[in-house]
């Protein structure tokens, strides 16, 4: 009895949690006139999705988002793991200061530094380019922190074996640490991909060229242009969310394990 009760509660709560999302998907599949009808749709239609995909440059937006998110994720993971390796495993003067310095950047969030960041990006010639979408998004202390915690927990013996072989630090990082961090990198890549796919404020500020619009801008632009057509707006929202849900479902098994091994305990 006891053991049955809580799982049932969990299932019920889970359904409640996803209900709003489910409702949106259902509404996106209704004809325009029925979008506010409260109840199971009597007719289903793919028109909304079709319209959004064909009449609006959604594929272009999706492609841009994919390019940006994947590039940022790959470069960020690489840089972060290098930095984390140094912070976790190497001894050098100023380590404490550098680490606290990096951690303190966690207090600064984008809305607060939007204007000065824009000025910096402009000086670097990053306006209106993929580089402008990608480069400033790479650097974030959170990933460095998580990876460092993970590396702290890797047994030193593994690295020492490489040391005996006379490997330099780069080789140790490349052939010992990096392969060992595959699971945590995999799960972090899920988090990073999600964060970048969902970014809105920075792409809004840095891009002007319509060919560089990312999906979130596309969806938010829909709201202005098709204000009266909830069916189309919802269809666009669903399309924008599909890739993230797919990535999440593919990577979700690893997420908990990753959180654990990064030493967030």
């Amino acid at each position, binding site marked *: 009895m006891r053991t049955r009760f809580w799982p049932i509660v969990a299932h019920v709560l889970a359904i409640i949690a996803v209900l709003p999302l489910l409702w949106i998907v259902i509404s996106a599949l209704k004809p325009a006139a029925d979008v506010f009808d409260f109840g199971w749709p009597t007719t289903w239609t793919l028109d909304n999705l079709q319209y959004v995909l064909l009449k609006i440059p959604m594929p272009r937006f999706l492609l841009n988002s994919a390019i940006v998110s994947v590039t940022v994720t790959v470069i960020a993971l690489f840089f972060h793991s290098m930095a984390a390796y140094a912070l976790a495993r190497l001894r050098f003067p100023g380590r404490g200061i550098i680490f606290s310095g990096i951690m303190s950047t966690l207090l600064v969030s984008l809305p607060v530094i939007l204007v000065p960041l*824009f000025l910096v990006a402009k000086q670097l010639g990053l306006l209106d380019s993929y580089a402008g979408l990608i480069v400033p998004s790479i650097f974030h202390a959170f990933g460095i922190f998580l990876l460092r915690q993970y590396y702290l927990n890797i047994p030193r013996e593994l690295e020492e074996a490489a040391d005996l072989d006379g490997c330099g630090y780069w080789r140790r990082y490349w052939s010992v640490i990096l392969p060992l961090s595959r699971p945590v990198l995999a799960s972090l890549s899920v988090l990073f991909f999600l964060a970048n796919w969902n970014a809105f404020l920075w792409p809004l500020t840095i891009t002007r060229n319509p060919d560089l619009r990312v999906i979130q801008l596309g969806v938010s632009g829909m709201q202005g242009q098709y204000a009266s057509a909830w069916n189309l707006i919802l269809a666009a929202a669903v399309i924008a969310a599909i890739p993230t849900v797919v990535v999440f479902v593919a990577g979700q098994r690893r997420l908990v394990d990753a959180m654990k091994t990064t030493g967030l305990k």
Partner: protein
Amino acid sequence: MAPPPAQLSRRTLLSAFAAVPLLSACGNSSGGDGKELSFWNFYGPSDDQGPQSKWFVAAAEEWNRNNEVKVKLRYIPGKDYLNGTTLQTAFQSGQGPDIFLISPGDFLRYYNGGVLQDLGPALSAAARADYLPGLLEARSVDGKVYGLPMEIEPLAMYYSETAFEKAGLSEADLPKTWDQTLAVAEKLTGKDRYGVMFETLPGYYQNFTWYPFLWQGDGAPIKDGKVAFDSPAAVQALKFWQDTIQHKVAPRKALGDGGGDVVSNLGSGAAAMQESGIWAVADLRAKARNVKYGVIPHPTPDGGKPATDLGGWAFVANSKGKNPEAAAKFIAWALGSTDAAGIERQRQWNTVVKTNVPPRKSVQAAADAKGAFADGALQKFVSEIAPTGKPEPRFPPEVYQPIADAIQACQLNAADPAKAAADAASRIDTFLQTYQGAPIS
């Protein structure tokens, strides 16, 4: 104003970073030679706005065929244009567009920022004389014209004939006074519908739609350079909007694009009466052909006079842009040409792809010749409603904000209108005492 040393050192610092080849290789800025002018607008190439977007494209193409300095359109979604960061960050960093659109509410911000180009030299005397009285003045300082209006957009009350029929009401029940409005709205309110609707989202647009009710009682935020907001007219106007919410006959949140979006609200049946502008005629024509509706002037308070607000966007040129003279020429050509082609271009904009009251007499005559304002809502707008209107005031943000706060607090938070009006007046007064920019009107 002398550039402060701090700015200098920051520049040097930044250019030092820019010298890092890895980073500077990643971007390029285009068109620095003054041969290409960027023109930012919010008429995007969607199905909804198709004809309007095409009008912009056609105008730019025609200009580009005959001129060496080319105009390049850039579309920014309305939400980002009105409330976003795009324009602001661009100007802040000296990357503003060469030509852009502004509403009256934005005029002083840009004028006082020193980025508006005098369009006078490009404008012929014939063109000046062609504009209706007051229109150019509203966009002028010291006799110099800084913006050319592309349209006049009066506000009025839309009503749904279907909703009236369903509630057993007829044309005779259309409200003429505020009290009647509340009474009729009560009858029209139902399970899925509100009787009447005003904008509820804070912003320049909400203030714009509220001013007619202030003016009806002969009120004004500022008279002769002094604050005049703490007046019976302001208090009763605040109270009227409050009553619509307190009586539960008006929504607290509009559908779609907000209070000005008639298709999403009145058109969908969510509101029976709705205050909006003349643009909604074209919107309804394009997106909700089967909606049966009519237009009436704003209901008035006891002893009040009819009034409406005349909105409308203008083209302006960036005086710090790549080629301000050419930009001014483009604007004068696109909106102010007095030849047949120029009048036709304006007629297209004001009566074919969009519905406005034309800002120029010759365009009005051309439109009348085609019967554009012969009947229905548009006739009412031109003959009955627009003549009672005043151009939208050009208040800087510091005047706009206290009024917006008063409207919001009374309408949605049951604040005491008298106190709200007094608070707003004192804030405006504080600002006026130190204000040094161009005259506020």
